[in-house]
């Protein structure tokens, strides 16, 4: 069982910026699903970008098991971590299969059509239920469908570390559940997944740890299951009162926000 250990770091976009992201030493065992929770601009995306090596704080170290991720060449890093950005600017007219093939580039740099690769791509087409629009090209799909394809491509990259910035956005309810189930099943495959979201219900249902972001400060890692017992950190993070209760019918935990 590998552990992700991050050195403490602080990061500013520009030296003159008021905003600073500060994180303590963190170590998170894998497999696990970690939710990132915080207001807009509190540093969730910045944190994910740092893990994805889009931003490089000075002296930052990120080890997954024995491997120091920050020193890997980019091509090797892509076999360890996959990052889904919040916005994807271009959807080229590739078919869905091609998109998944491209996701295999870190493992299969010549994109050869080997049997094992074809099976993998079939598997992820099935898992993400992409078969209904298999012949279509990415640029002609709806926004939610495009998101689903890109999510499938991130999972098809088969990395031990997966970083998803607001993955539930623009997915319909069945797809949100679908994604939740897939994230849960990744626990059996020894993957460590980070998800940022504003949807507390989804985070509560599918994550087992939560990182709170309070204006750039990260207090530490909290077990998700413990949140209802002590909601003060949650309320501080969201800057509102939160009532946590079990649903009458479904027995699911529900969150109600009060100003």
């Amino acid at each position, binding site marked *: 069982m590998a552990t992700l250990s991050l050195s403490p770091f602080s990061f500013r976009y520009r030296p003159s910026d008021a905003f600073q992201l500060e994180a303590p030493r963190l170590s998170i065992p894998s497999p696990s699903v970690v939710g990132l929770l915080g207001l807009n601009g509190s540093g969730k995306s910045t944190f994910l970008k740092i893990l*994805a090596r889009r931003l490089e704080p000075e002296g930052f170290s990120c080890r997954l098991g024995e491997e120091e991720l920050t020193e890997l060449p*980019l091509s*090797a890093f*892509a076999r360890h971590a996959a990052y889904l*950005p919040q916005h994807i*600017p*271009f959807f080229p007219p*590739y078919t869905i299969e091609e998109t998944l093939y491209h996701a295999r*580039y870190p493992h299969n740099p*010549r994109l050869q059509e080997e049997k094992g690769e074809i099976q993998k791509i079939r598997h992820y087409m099935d898992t993400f239920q992409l078969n209904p629009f298999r012949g279509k090209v990415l640029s002609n799909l709806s926004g939610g469908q495009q998101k689903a394809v890109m999510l499938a491509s991130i999972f098809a990259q088969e990395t031990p570390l997966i970083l998803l910035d607001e993955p539930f956005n623009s997915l319909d309810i069945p797809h949100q559940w679908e994604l939740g189930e897939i994230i849960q099943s990744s626990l059996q495959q020894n993957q460590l997944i980070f998800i940022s979201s504003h949807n507390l219900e989804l985070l509560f249902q599918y994550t087992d740890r939560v990182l709170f972001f309070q204006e750039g400060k990260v207090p530490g890692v909290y077990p998700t299951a413990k949140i209802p017992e002590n909601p003060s950190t949650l309320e501080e993070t969201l800057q509102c009162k939160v009532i946590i209760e079990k649903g009458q019918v479904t027995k699911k935990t529900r969150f109600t926000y009060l100003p």
Partner: protein
Amino acid sequence: MKKYSALLFSIFPYVLLLVIILISLRLGTVNVPFRAVLPDHEPDFERIIFWQRFYRISAAFLAGAILSICGAVLQTLFHNPLVSPYTIGISGTASLGATLAHILGWTWHWGFVNSLQFSAFLFALLCLMGMLAFARRRRSDFLLHFILVGIVLNILSGSLILFLRYISDPYEYMVVDRWLMGSIQVLDFSSLLPLLLVFLVTLIYFSYSHIPLDILAYGEEIARTRGVDVYRLQKGCIFFSALAVSIVVATCGIIGFVGLIIPHLIKLTGIIHHRSLLHLSIVYGGCFLVAADTLSRTILSPVELPVGILTSIIGGVIFFVILLNSRERG
């Protein structure tokens, strides 16, 4: 049957190229038979003209191929279908170099290179180096700065050229003017050599990076997720295309629209993968310029029309038609 048509489809560009080259070898002010290729062919001048024509056709092919392959790559790189090889400031600075060489009375020949070409190449290269050094400091939005600086350099060079023209003798300036209009004046192997070398180098680099270029179409973030070193790819593509295009500009002057129109036409047929896109850009770009050059030296025969004028007219009309059609389809 399907396989048969696929084969036909892949052969077609080469057949077209061959036909265009054969026609082009025959057309011209002087009619030269194909048997002039034989080493003991008499009369002598037919053999000489044949080979001159051959080198000129080769140069036209290489220049067209380079311009359109670089156009295709840069359009992907900048995610912008309006980018041409000249957008990154090469044409402007090269023209400025040529104009300056002329104004300063810098006239010499060294082997197959004359001062005009040398100065144009030097300026284009300096421009590229300066831009790469400038962009180095702004790694995060490297491309945006690169293209902005390129546009500014083009405008700046344009106005400096106007100034130099204003203060120089209009009759003497004709030399530069003619060169700027673009024409393929390659009559022997040694003037062809730089084009050939730079074509091979860019071809090797681009064919090595066709999969990363495919992946770059999703945008930089996704490409980086897949392990593509985006910054290095961008720098490499810009360096090699700028190098190649500056050689083309130095040898043939400014030949517009080829680098814009050919990749466009190929993409309109539904080809999006860089393997085929780049490959077809070479063949069709070459075809287009060989045909245009042939037309330019026969249409007003015995006077020769600068091919740059012709490509711009043809290219402009084709581009306009494309735009009108795409509006209809919505």
